[in-house]
Every structure is written in structure tokens, then in C-alpha cells.
């Protein structure tokens, strides 16, 4: 009753093609943005920003990247962790080699470098599909981990083998390094993720997104219509890697500060991001955010409830977390393969009628 588009007429194709065509959605998004920009910064503490908001935002970006490749273009990838590592290392090398370079440009360039690496590992997609391609991207994961561990140049010959982000400022505000304020890091992440997410949404709703989805749904028909499968897939690989790379660079600079690349971005991260898009919803921008929030928040909530309130040992809580995630993934694959985003859509359809039966 309250959530319906009746009476909202569109007089132009531009209005019909808007991202949020229904007025209630526009209000909803505006409210969320207001809270994110003006309420959370004043309410949250150091722990809230560092443990919850910043990782959720960063992994949302990584999930958007993988969703472009897997959800929209239908190419399964298990190399996300490896590409995040490329982004992190690129960010570190760029900012140590050119300390004067603006940090925003460093992040974007890290994405571009990752995009080129992704392009390279996307070449096998011409010939192989599905599980076989997943194995090829798994090779990328292991190769990149090995490379960053083995070649000391990538760590600037640091004896500890870790890379540490030096302090950098954006428009006079310190955003990286140990001395930086968590709220500033959060706000920087928020703005960066919103801008990049909008760019991704624009891509997938336009001609390029249609070419990806065409390849995903029926590659032979797509080719006979005039799409070039190879170019289309490579574009998806590079755009996806760009997003994953920027997420990796942000994870190093704005969240972790100091990492051992092979450990921080191992195969578990690849799976984690894959679970995010499966649980969140394949081929959905909102699903990327929902999935990232779900995967990051669930362990925190579980630990707080089990250890904090119920008095279990931390180890027990950790084990229960594994079982819980395993169960959730199986449940989603069986009950709702299109994830949380689809549940949200069903809820919206129900809301159109509520509280009336029809």
C-alpha cells in the first residue's frame, strides 16, 4: 500500500531508465546516504569503523568487481584474492616510489595495473568455460601469491616480508598510516566506494552490461547478433580486476595498514568474496553490498553473542562460525540461488499489496 508506484508516470525514456525509478526507493536511498554521511561518523567509535564499516565497504567493492565478472558476464573466478594482492602491492610500490603522487590517483592506478594483470589471466576464457576456467583463475591466485612472496622487490626488500603503508594525506586530511583517524578513513572509503559503485551500476545498465549478460546467458546467440565474445569477456575481466584491485589497495592502505601479501590475500579471501556474491545475489549491485555486510557482520555478531553473552569459549565460537557459514551457503544454493537481493525483491513485491490480500 505504501510502497507502490501507482500514480508515478514516466513521460520520458530517461525517467524510465533511471536507477531508482520509484519515488519510495529514491527517498530510501537518500535516507541511507544521510545516515552514512551525517549520523554514523558521529555515533561510531574506533572499533565500529575499523572492524565493521571499513571492511564492509572495501569488501563490497571487491564483491562488485567479482559480480561484474561472475554475476554479469558468467565467468567463474577464484583468483579474487590474488588480484586484491596485485592492487595492494601496486598501491605500495606506487606510493613508495612516488611519495608526492596524490593518494586517489595511486588507488586508481593500482586498479589499472590490476586490470592489466586480470586481462592477461582472462585470455584462457576464450577457450575454456565454467569449472575449467575457475581452475585457471585458481592458478592465477597461487602464482600471484608465490610471486609476491618470492620476489623481494615487491616488498622493497623489507626483511620481514611485509608491506607497510606510509602515511598519506588527501586534501590535507591524513587517511592512511597508524596515526590516521578511523572516522576519516571511513568517510574516505564511503565516498570512494559510492563513486565507483555508481560507475559500475552505469556500466551494467548500459550497452556494455547488456553485452556481458548476453554472453552469460547464451554466448552463441550473442555472437550471431554481433557481439565479439573474446573482447566482451576480456573487458569484463579487466573491469572486474580494476574493482578488485582498488579494493585490495584500499584494504592495505585504509584498513590493514601492514600486510604480508601471501597471507592477507590468500585463497580464503577468494572464497569469501565468492560467498559474498552467492549469498548477496549474482548479477545484482545491491547484492554485492548485502553479501559483503552479511559475511563480515555474521562472525562479529556470532562471536559477541556466543562469547560475550553466552559464555562459550572463543574456539567454540570460531568452529560454530564455520558450520554456520557452510549451512548458510548450502541453504542459499537450494532455497534462493539468487541470494539476498532476490529476497529483497520478493519483499518489495509483497509490500506493494500489504496490508491487503490482493
Amino acid at each position: 500500500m505504501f510502497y507502490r508506484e501507482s500514480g508515478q508516470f514516466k513521460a520520458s525514456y530517461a525517467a524510465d531508465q533511471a536507477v531508482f525509478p520509484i519515488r519510495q526507493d529514491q527517498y530510501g536511498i537518500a535516507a541511507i546516504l544521510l545516515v552514512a554521511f551525517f549520523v554514523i561518523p558521529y555515533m561510531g567509535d574506533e572499533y565500529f569503523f575499523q572492524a565493521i564499516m571499513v571492511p564492509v565497504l572495501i569488501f563490497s567493492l571487491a564483491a562488485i568487481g567479482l559480480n561484474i565478472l561472475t554475476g554479469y558476464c558468467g565467468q567463474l573466478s577464484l583468483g579474487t584474492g590474488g588480484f586484491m594482492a596485485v592492487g595492494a602491492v601496486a598501491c605500495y610500490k606506487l606510493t613508495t616510489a612516488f611519495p608526492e603522487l596524490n593518494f586517489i590517483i595511486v588507488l586508481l592506478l593500482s586498479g589499472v595495473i590490476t586490470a592489466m594483470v586480470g586481462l592477461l589471466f582472462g585470455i584462457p576464457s576464450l577457450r575454456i568455460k565454467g569449472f575449467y576456467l575457475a581452475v585457471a583463475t585458481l592458478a592465477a591466485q597461487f602464482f600471484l601469491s608465490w610471486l609476491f612472496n618470492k620476489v623481494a622487490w615487491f616488498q622493497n626488500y623489507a626483511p620481514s616480508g611485509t608491506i607497510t603503508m606510509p602515511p598519506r594525506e588527501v586534501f590535507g586530511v591524513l587517511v592512511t598510516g597508524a596515526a590516521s583517524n578511523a572516522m576519516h578513513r571511513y568517510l574516505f572509503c564511503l565516498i570512494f566506494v559510492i563513486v565507483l559503485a555508481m560507475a559500475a551500476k552505469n556500466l551494467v545498465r548500459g550497452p556494455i552490461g547488456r553485452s556481458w549478460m548476453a554472453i552469460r546467458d547464451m554466448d552463441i546467440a550473442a555472437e550471431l547478433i554481433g557481439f565479439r565474445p573474446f573482447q566482451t569477456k576480456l573487458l569484463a575481466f579487466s573491469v572486474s580486476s580494476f574493482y578488485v584491485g582498488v579494493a585490495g589497495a584500499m584494504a592495505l592502505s585504509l584498513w590493514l595498514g601492514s600486510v604480508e601479501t601471501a597471507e592477507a590475500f590468500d585463497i580464503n579471501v577468494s572464497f569469501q568474496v565468492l560467498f559474498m556474491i552467492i549469498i548477496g545475489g549474482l548479477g545484482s549491485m545491491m547484492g554485492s553490498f548485502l553479501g559483503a555486510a552479511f559475511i563480515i557482520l555474521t562472525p562479529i555478531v556470532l562471536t559477541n553473542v556466543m562469547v560475550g553473552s553466552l559464555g562459550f569459549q572463543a574456539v567454540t565460537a570460531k568452529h560454530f562460525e564455520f558450520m554456520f557459514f557452510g549451512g548458510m551457503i548450502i541453504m542459499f544454493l537450494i532455497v534462493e540461488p539468487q541470494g539476498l537481493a532476490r529476497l529483497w525483491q520478493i519483499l518489495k513485491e509483497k509490500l506493494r499489496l500489504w496490508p491487503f490480500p490482493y
Partner: protein
Amino acid sequence: MSAAEALEPETILSVENITLSFGAVRAIRDVSFDIRKGEIRAIIGPNGAGKTSMLNVINGFYHPQEGRIMFRGAVRKQMKPHEAAAGGIARTFQNVALFRGMTTLDNIMTGRNLKMDKWRTSLIPAMFYYGPTQKEEIKHREYVERVIEFLEIEAIRKTPVGRLPYGLQKRVELGRALAAEPDLLLLDEPMAGMNLEEKEDMCRFVLDVNDEFGTTIALIEHDMGVVMDLSDRVVVLDHGEKIADGTPEDVKSNQNVIDAYLGVSH
């Protein structure tokens, strides 16, 4: 133009001595025929005669071992599918080959991809969307809306095609092919599996496309009533060979054709 050429209808496509085999299996043996501009050309034959293979050769999905294809004056031994599409050949498929996860509107919009401006729909403008890409989208949306109106599928514009009934899916697929403004439209069994009413609708659309847009149509169909009513000329294939070619009346009375369809006592 000389007097002889003016009298002779212009040939848009001719296939000459095409032979196609998969390993030891010969799908098409030394088949030649032509399609004239503006006509409806039917390709018929019993199951396994090589009709669909012939369409796949024409739009570049299969590469024949022998023979050549002449399309709008250019002679090719083979071409790539996207070259055929760029050259103005569009098609529909025997088993509906729509993009199931996308809406009707998006499916038909994909048909416009070759008509869209390359720069305006490239990566950087598309990331910003507002500006060149949006202008391009709206321009092509207008054409797509004409196709949607023509095919009377306004009501399912925003429905994912996976949820549509079969008859409507076939219609959307025709829409996707029409959106490309093809010179030659290949229809692979457009009426298969439809009820009488849906068939009549589809026949009307085929005739209207031919009439209003002047599109040349080559169609494969098993319903003889449809073939005899719609087509200007018919080519009959059997076991990969051409056994007859001519007007529906000629073909109907051809002894080879009758033998192929009804069987012949040995």
C-alpha cells in the same frame, strides 16, 4: 542499369556448390541456390536434411569445406558470425535462444548493438552514463519501442524473458532480430510448437515485416500450409542435397519431393 538487369530481380545472396561435413558425416552436399531481394524464400525438407546447417553456413557459424557464398556482391568462402551480423544478416533459432536473465526490452536492445555509436557506448562514457551514452540509449530505445509496438508486446516490456510463455518468447526473438534492421532475416522454424492462433499471428508478422520493412526473409518451416501460403519460392533439401527449387506450386507437384516426404517403395 541495363534493361536485362532491371527485369531480372536483384539477388541478395547466393550460395554456390556448398559442401559441409562433420568428420565422415556429410551434412550438405553440393547445394546451390539464391535468394532475391525482397522475397520470402522457404527452405524445407524432412528431418536431418541439412536445413539448419544451411542457415548456420549462411550466417557464418559453420564453415563449409567447399563452395562459396555471395552476399550483396561480395564473394566469400566463409565469414565470421559478427561479420555476417554487421553485413545485415539477422536470425532466430529453432530452440529459442534468448538471453533468459534479461528483460524483453533489454533483449531487443541487444539487437541494436551494431547500430550503436562505438565511442558513445565505450567504457569511459558508459561509466559516466549521463551524457553521450544516455543520448545513445534513448535514441535506440525509440527504435526498439517501434519494434515492440509492431509485435504487440508492450505489456511484457519489463518482464524477464525466462518467465514468458513459449509463443511470446518466439515473438521477442523475432523482435531482437528485427531491431538490427537486417537486409536478410533468417527464421529457423518460427512457428514450431505453436498453436493455431499463435501461428496465424506469426504469419502476419512475417508478411508485415516483408511488406513494411522490405526485409528479405529466408525461413525454415515444417508446416506445409504456412510454407505454401507465405513463400515466393521454395528450395527443398533431402539428405543434404537439393532435390527441388521453384515456386510452391512447382515444388508441390515435384515427384522427388513427394518421394522424400512420403517415402518411396523400393
